[in-house]
């Protein structure tokens, strides 16, 4: 009887969050799917009509779409590469005995706590600006021509800025995982004559594999939706050179007012994210059992 009572109480306690998330998941998504089959532009209200798959075919044949897919992948893979490799190196470094470890840790974590618009604007103006930026000054110091990062290498610049923000995340998680590595195991390996390199390959890396997977999956989810950094630095340009899928849908919706087209793009983005999410959920699901 008592258990029955607690059980219904438990249901009642869970209900609000389930209902809210259910509504949040179903209502807007259903609307997006519905809109994606309409010819619907905010500048022409009252002209909505069923459009079949034409929004999808418009989107899928738009050259900007392929550029956006390429850019999205480039941002995800570029940032992942920099942050995972850099993160492993930094985590190994910070795990060594040193003076003032706590302070160095704080310095390294800081970029992750900076809001994306601040990070992007500081990099854009105070570092990458070809006239007044610090990089230009350094270039001139060596007698080189200042490089206009955002005009000549917009995608790479965005990747650099985003990587700066996410390096701390990877470092922090890998460092946490590293610190749970058994000290005795390391010593045993050392006694058995394993060099630093083989200890890293056969002991440390396998121990980190789980944390690396988590870093890759979680970052991918966020990196697929990079937005603010592009909006305030390049605005997707020049042309569509730094437009990713998120930015393309945003531009279609709020700059072109094309509700139907933007919705079709949104659905494509959802499908892509779901593929990644599938793997992430399986990873996290396993930890629930442990």
């Amino acid at each position: 009887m008592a258990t029955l009572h607690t059980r219904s109480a438990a249901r009642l306690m869970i209900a609000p969050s389930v209902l809210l998330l259910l509504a949040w998941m179903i209502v807007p998504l259903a609307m997006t799917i519905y809109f994606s089959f309409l010819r619907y532009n905010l500048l022409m209200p009252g002209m909505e009509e069923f459009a079949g798959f034409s929004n999808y075919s418009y989107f899928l044949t738009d050259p900007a779409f392929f550029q956006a897919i390429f850019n999205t992948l480039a941002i995800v893979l570029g940032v992942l590469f920099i942050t995972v490799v850099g993160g492993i190196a930094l985590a190994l470094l910070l795990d060594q005995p040193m003076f003032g470890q706590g302070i160095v840790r704080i310095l390294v974590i800081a970029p992750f706590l900076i809001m994306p618009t601040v990070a992007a604007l500081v990099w854009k103006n105070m570092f990458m600006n070809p006239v007044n930026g610090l990089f230009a000054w350094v270039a001139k110091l060596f007698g080189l021509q200042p490089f206009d990062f955002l005009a000549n290498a917009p995608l790479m610049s965005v990747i650099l800025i985003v990587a700066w923000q996410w390096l701390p995340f990877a470092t922090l998680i890998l460092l946490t995982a590293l610190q749970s590595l058994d000290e005795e195991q390391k010593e045993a390996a050392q006694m058995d004559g394993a060099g630093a390199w083989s200890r890293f390959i056969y002991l440390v890396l396998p121990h980190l594999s789980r944390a690396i997977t988590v870093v890759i999956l979680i970052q991918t989810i966020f990196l697929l939706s990079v937005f603010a950094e592009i909006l305030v630095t390049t605005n997707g340009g020049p042309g569509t050179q730094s437009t990713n899928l998120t930015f393309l849908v945003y531009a279609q919706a709020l700059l072109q007012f094309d509700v139907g087209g933007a919705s079709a793009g949104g659905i494509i983005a959802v499908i892509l994210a779901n593929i990644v999410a599938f793997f992430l959920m399986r990873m996290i699901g396993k930890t629930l059992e442990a």
Partner: protein
Amino acid sequence: MARNVSTQRKIVVTVVAWTIGILIFFPILWTFLTSFKTEAEAIASPPSLFFFDWTTENYHEVQSRSNYFLHFMNSVVVSFGSTLIGLIIAIPSAWAMAFSPTKRTKDVLMWMLSTKMMPSVGVLVPMYLLFRNTGLLDTRTGLVIVLTLINLPIIIWMLYTYFKEIPGEILEAARMDGASLTKEIIYVLTPMAIPGIASTLLLNIILAWNEAFWTLNLSAAKAAPLTAFIASYSSPEGLFYAKLSAASTMAIAPILILGWFSQKQLVRGLTFGAVK
């Protein structure tokens, strides 16, 4: 001899680590320093690191030109509001799932997490239209609603992983000693749950403060939090580096401080308990 080598090694490691740490931190330090320069000094060549006439003029100017305080308060209201409402909704759920789990608890948790995987841009269009039609566009209320919803899964998950660590035997022991349900909650559970709730609160304020998709798309002049306000510096007029730096410093300082205090919780919250 061995000891000597290890001290030497420690010094080398220290120098390398500090150099890299300072390099990574440098953009933030540079922003902080520039915020105390005049506009002319901010773009001076060669740039000066510490030796310039320190001035707080930029801070005054940012406030008087653009009502900085309004946007700051928007950030405070939106991040604290959404976090607190999220906690009120999430605490009972996480509690129930941690202490009276059923066969389906795991599925419910996984499903909640899956809502977080949906890219925001997938629902940008309907949210924008819903907000426009209900008058929620550019209001603090609207932003609080959206940020509560997007962070709710993280709040529930974090709380769940913390509550899970409270041993159930303690509850039984209290019950055996004749504690009533109210007493049980006040004297036994609350003290054990508070650290977890506090960490969750901290992490979510950080996430909400820095959220820059919905705040940029659903707010304009009135309800814009600092994320959106700072974005207005992307197309400025005249010299603005020092003013941008002052506005940025004020926007990031509170969160930097909060974040430094909650490093450990960051890992746990951001990996949904997968890495502790």
